[in-house]
């Protein structure tokens, strides 16, 4: 519609003279030429801008050649009337329709400004307002939970902990709009504000914890809760119209530069466990051996108690039998006779293996 000549076309004689269609509103003896009108190509879908129209119609306004080629002709309309009014009416009604009827989807709300001033908030449904420029509508989804991820670029972001260590921390903030008019009119950059408030709240909350606490599940849960309440308090103080739904710490890691040292702590724990396990295995062995031996002794002793003398003898003979049957024996019979030791024999053995001339058997 912008740039179209508002002066009417030819009076029904169907003569479409070529012309610019942009006659200045001056006293000319001849009527203005009929502006050839292009087929609408999205031109009429744009809501008309009154300012544009009049800027070009002002006395000093620039002259604008009508769109379309100079030789372009529109087919004649039945009845031989000009197309122009049809287009005007069409464009105007289209403009009215798009600026008057609004579909607000479920979970959305729309703020209506009447001549710039906030008038009301639209709830879901098909809603009718006054046309532009009297009323304007901005529709936003208020139920959708939006997410912000930190750090935004996914790079390592180190935060100082209370014990002056550094932790590599990434987290997600989930929020939605709880008051659309505040969200729209209170802050110049609401989303940017949420982001900055989140950073400030997280920084402050981590500074209250030690490094080890940030690694523990409980410490993380506490930080999340602190950040959420802090953020909500700050945003409410700004009257941002935003509800923080949740803060989720995704990971807390040591900085990559020192991660090896942290891994070594885990390795040390493994090592310590291994040492303890080896000791337990040894303990198991020793205890089993002890209880086994004690059990064996108990059994034998019970027998022994039944017939002490005989059992003792039996055990003695059995043992001697086992021992002496496997070894060389020399018995020296008579008193006063120098015992002859078969030394060569012994030496011969000593050559083949280390022989042990034994003293008379002794107990432990």
């Amino acid at each position, binding site marked *: 519609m912008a740039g179209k000549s508002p002066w009417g076309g030819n009076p*029904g004689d169907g003569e479409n003279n070529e012309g610019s269609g942009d006659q200045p509103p001056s006293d000319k003896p001849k009527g203005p030429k009929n502006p050839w009108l292009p087929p609408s190509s999205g031109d009429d879908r744009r809501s008309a801008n009154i300012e544009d129209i009049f800027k070009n119609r002002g006395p000093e306004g620039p002259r604008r050649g009508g769109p379309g080629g100079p030789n372009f002709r529109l087919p004649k309309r039945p009845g031989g009337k000009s197309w122009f009014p049809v287009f005007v009416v069409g464009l105007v009604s289209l403009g009215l329709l798009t600026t008057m009827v609004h579909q607000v989807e479920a979970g959305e709300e729309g703020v209506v*400004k009447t001549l710039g001033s906030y008038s009301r908030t639209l709830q879901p449904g098909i809603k009718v307002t006054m046309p532009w420029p009297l009323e304007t509508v901005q529709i936003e989804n208020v139920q959708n939970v939006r997410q912000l991820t930190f750090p935004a670029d996914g790079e390592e972001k180190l935060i100082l902990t*209370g014990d002056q260590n550094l932790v590599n921390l990434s987290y997600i903030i989930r929020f939605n709009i709880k008051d659309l008019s505040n969200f729209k*009119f209170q802050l*110049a950059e609401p989303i940017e504000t949420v982001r900055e408030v989140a950073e*400030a709240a997280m920084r402050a909350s981590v500074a209250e914890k030690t490094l080890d606490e940030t690694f523990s599940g409980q410490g993380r849960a506490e930080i999340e809760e602190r950040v959420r309440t802090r953020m909500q308090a700050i945003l409410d103080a700004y009257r941002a119209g935003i509800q923080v739904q949740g803060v989720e710490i995704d990971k807390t890691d040591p900085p990559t530069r020192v991660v090896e040292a942290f891994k070594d702590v885990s390795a040390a724990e493994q090592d*310590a466990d291994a040492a303890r396990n080896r*000791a337990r295995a040894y303990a198991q062995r020793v205890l089993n*051996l002890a209880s086994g031996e004690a059990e064996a002794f108990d059994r034998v002793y019970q027998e022994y108690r039944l017939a002490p003398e005989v059992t003792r003898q039996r055990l003695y003979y059995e043992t001697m039998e086992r021992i002496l049957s496997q070894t060389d*024996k020399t018995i020296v019979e008579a008193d006063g006779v120098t015992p002859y030791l078969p030394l060569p024999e012994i030496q011969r053995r000593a050559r083949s293996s280390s022989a042990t001339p034994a003293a008379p058997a002794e107990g432990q």
Partner: protein
Amino acid sequence: MQTVWENHKLTIIAVVALIIAVLSTLFVVSEEEQVVILRGGEPVTVVNRFKPDQGFGSTGAGVWYRIPLLDNVVRIDKRVMDLEMTDQQVLSSDQQRLLVNAYARFRIIDPVRMVQRAQTTENLRRQLEPILNSVLRQELGRRTFQAMLTAERGTAMTNIRNNLDRQAREYGAQVIDVRIMRTDLPEGTPLESAFRRMETDREREAATIRAEGERDARIIRAEADASAARTYAQSFGQDPQFYDFYRAMQSYDATFAQREDGAESNFILSPDNEYLRQFRGRR
């Protein structure tokens, strides 16, 4: 159409002129802006100036007028705006360096003064940023490194806000809040030494854990030994004399048995040996 134009030429022109006049006179002031009308560079009217506790819809927003070609309309944001700064190095009272980044939220409460002193919001930001930097430096520099990290706990942020606010009011702006967004250790020595400290901390911890493991292992072994000794004592203590005999027998078995490595024992038995008692026949 032709005839309409011919007959009502003047009327049409008049109507069009009227519309143009109306449109260049009236303008819409939106809910989120304040407007200062300048006539010859001097402010004459303020529309929709910020007032606290005004509900939306009952503000001064709406249609307003100007004298075309004479009045200049300056639109100023009414909403809370953001003042960001670049990272500042602050030296704490205990001589440690820290990179600090903060933001301030401000809004313009006196648009006339703001237009006169700073012209645009961008200019205003340029004026306020160095003020924020120096106020922050001053206030945090009085504190220890540890207190800087938890600046929210003390009066630091309030002082910074009040200081900045006092100076911002000169420009017709009100500072609502100042927050520290980031505190980082500067690259180089401070960061390196923090890393080194973290590393040595962990090394110490690892050594301690390993030592504890060894200690526990020793204790476990000792306890087992003690417990085994108790078991033996309970059992063998029933009859020490028999134990002596019994254990001796076991010991002989273990000592004199034919071993696989071929080491052999040689016995020279005296006839008086207990084992040969029967061998000599009855006497």
